[in-house]
């Protein structure tokens, strides 16, 4: 990995990694630190990466480990202040933040891997080190949990087509 290649990684992926960290830990400053930490570790460990043309899963692995360590340390998730302070997307985004705040971190995580990054079941399975069938069942449970808390005026948005769900 040369310097130019690493710059491409940063340019291509720092936005989505930031969003993943932000939705997972609910704190913009902390999300920024975690993304910096991720690329710092990636730079130091870049020689260990086998598939350099596709670094996102590797970067996500580093980021998610760091996020869960912070979540375990802090033990709280309070995104309201950030998401209700005029984030583009308006009330829809703020409402989603309130809904995600009521899911557990693992459920937020698997939703993000699927809906934010668009990873396949196989990629998610590798990311979480679980079988694909377990991915599907966990996604279904996360979807059900999101539907349960995403009510009120956004009732229609509760019907999210995650696999394994029954309508």
């Amino acid at each position, binding site marked *: 990995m040369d310097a130019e290649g690493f710059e491409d990684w940063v340019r291509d992926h720092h936005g989505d990694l930031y969003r993943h960290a932000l939705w997972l830990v609910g704190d913009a400053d902390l999300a*920024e630190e975690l993304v*910096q930490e991720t690329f710092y570790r990636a730079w130091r460990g870049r020689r260990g990466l086998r598939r350099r043309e596709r670094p996102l899963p590797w970067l996500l692995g580093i980021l998610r480990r760091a996020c869960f360590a912070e979540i375990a*340390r802090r033990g709280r998730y309070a995104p309201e202040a950030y998401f209700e302070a005029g984030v583009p997307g308006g009330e829809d985004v703020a409402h*989603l933040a309130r809904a995600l705040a009521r899911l557990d971190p693992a459920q937020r995580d698997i939703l993000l891997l699927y809906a934010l990054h668009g990873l396949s079941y196989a990629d998610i399975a590798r990311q979480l080190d679980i079988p694909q069938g377990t991915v599907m069942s966990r996604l279904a449970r996360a979807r059900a949990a999101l539907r349960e808390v995403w009510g009120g005026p956004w009732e229609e948005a509760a019907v999210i087509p995650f696999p394994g769900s029954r309508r």
Partner: protein
Amino acid sequence: MNDETHIDERLRRALRAPEPPPDLAARILAQRPPRKPRRWPALAAAAGVLLALGLWPSPYPPGEAFVAHARDEARLQRLAGAPPLAGVELMKRCRVAGRDYLHLRLRQDGQAVDAFVGTPPPGLMEQGRAGDRLWRRLDRDGRSLVLVYPPGLDPVPVAERILAHLNPSKEVPRT
């Protein structure tokens, strides 16, 4: 577009709404060290000559001198400064001690108020960080300079200043 696709797209759009800070990519890229010239082949050849001639200037064979020195200095050394400490001086001490890690806590004016050299014990990084931000920088030799700084202070110039003062004649501009 059916309902499922519409709602799926709506969730995706909401998740993608938050934008990263505009300078985040620049700060990430500034974490990397400047390029380091590859000197090890010449150094290895010189060490080989010294060993062959029996002129090696240490009781330890090559490589072990550093390890032995680092082991002697293994305990965490806390350099808690009552007066503000200059980061440059601390990083020099870090290098002299053969450590790979320097943690500095900065005041608003960019001066260090305390520092830790060596591998931090668990939990050290989180101490006294209420409201503070954290940023890392690698130096050219792979050592980590970790800055804990108050909001409003840009850590990049501080790190650049510290590292540039260490050995200005050997710094290689980043391309």
